[in-house]
């Protein structure tokens, strides 16, 4: 079982480096939403790679600080992404308020940088999930772009809100290693499912270059 999960873990890392390249290939010819989404995929790839390097190459004690870049970068890029899809200007307002709140959090408690930020994870994930839900409602009538990627974002962020949110709790509880490993593994499986959906989205809609008529 462990060996399977190890392979799975390798797959997610390499996969997260592979599909941004697919998306980057048609970067220039596509619309703004596509460009922002590609940047988001690049961010995921960079975070995955840095996480791998931090443990295997640089041999850092903790790579928790990366989680902050991950969720804040994710929140900014996906908010911009949904502004393009939903055309709601108020998303900018929400983005600004949440960023101000997070800024205040880190200034008032700099220690937070070396821990998980459960509240931050919860707030940002929930807001993105709401955007995804709004977009799903909008795609009810007619064919809309990024339907599959949207489902992927919705499912992955909703289910992992709790995994990342409970990170500190798990450390404090001193539960057996196997349990925290279990959470990591669940995350990996969900992440792979998310990646597959993004890949299928590319395969179905963007693998064949659009011919301009």
């Amino acid at each position: 079982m462990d060996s399977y999960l190890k392979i799975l873990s390798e797959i997610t890392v390499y996969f997260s480096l592979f599909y941004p390249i697919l998306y980057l290939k048609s970067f220039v010819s596509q619309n703004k939403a596509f460009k922002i989404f590609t940047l988001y995929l690049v961010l995921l790839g960079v975070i995955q790679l840095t996480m791998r390097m931090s443990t295997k190459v640089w041999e850092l004690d903790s790579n928790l600080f990366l989680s902050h870049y991950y969720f804040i970068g994710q929140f900014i890029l996906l908010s911009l992404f949904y502004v393009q899809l939903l055309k709601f200007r108020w998303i900018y307002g929400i983005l600004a308020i949440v960023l101000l709140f997070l800024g205040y959090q880190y200034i008032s408690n700099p220690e937070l940088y070396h821990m998980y930020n459960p509240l931050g994870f919860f707030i940002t994930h929930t807001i993105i999930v709401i955007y995804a839900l709004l977009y799903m409602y909008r795609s009810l009538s007619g064919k809309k772009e990024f339907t599959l990627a949207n489902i992927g974002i919705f499912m992955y962020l909703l289910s992992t809100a709790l995994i990342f949110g409970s990170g500190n709790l798990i450390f404090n509880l001193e539960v057996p290693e196997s349990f925290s490993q279990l959470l990591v593994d669940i995350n990996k499986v969900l992440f792979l499912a998310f990646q597959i959906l993004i890949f299928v989205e590319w395969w179905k809609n963007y693998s064949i270059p659009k011919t301009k008529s």
Partner: protein
Amino acid sequence: MVEELFDTQNQIVNIILLAIALLLLMSFAIVLFFYFSRRKITKAELEKAKFEIDYQKDLLQATIVTQEEERKRIAQDLHDAISSKLNVVSLNANMLTDGEISSEETQKIGDSIHTITATVLENSRRIAHDLLPPTLEKFGLQAAVEELCEELTDTEKFELKHSIDYVEGSLKPEKELHVFRIIQELMNNTIKHSEAKTITLDLTSGENNLSLRYKDDGKGFQKENIKNAKGLGMSGIENRAVILEGDVQINSSPGEGIEVFLTTKTNHAN
């Protein structure tokens, strides 16, 4: 104590795991819900589109049928009122060129030719008038409908109560023609089929709307048969109402005559 703590921790761990599973399940359910709703909506839209296409087909068919009937009527008119009479003229002219006839006979034949050509002229004018009344083009809808009413009154078969209050320019000329045709068709129906005594016609154009009310006290027909009453030109009336982007309501029952309401927006409304 340690065991107890461990138990509590285990419980928390279990709750977290359960909550994650629940979230996953919920997200699955929501995605499925949206997926099936979307399928349902797409299906409903498809059905609606099909319905519209069917309707368009019916409309097209009705138009073709009407067109053919109209051609048949014109052909009949031309044959009866012009060709057959011109035949007689041609025959008479032949007799004139024969040369072996007395001047009295020549006079008689000349008179006959004169009378017949006058009739042919009158008939051809009538046919042209039926096809496109010159009054409508020259003097507008008000005058054309008034003329229709006069013609109907002249027959002395009906008592006609009419009030026509149409402001010129309320409708575009092509729409005026449709309104005129609807009134003409309704009157034709009354004359041909209804055995009515009284006809009421109100045509009013207001600021935004044009409304037409037509009523007779004839024998009427089953309301269910309206759709099938192609011979009565009802589908033609409905088609014209569609082109006018207006609403038409046709009420009739046996023995109760017919009552038709038509409303459409005027130019000013847009």
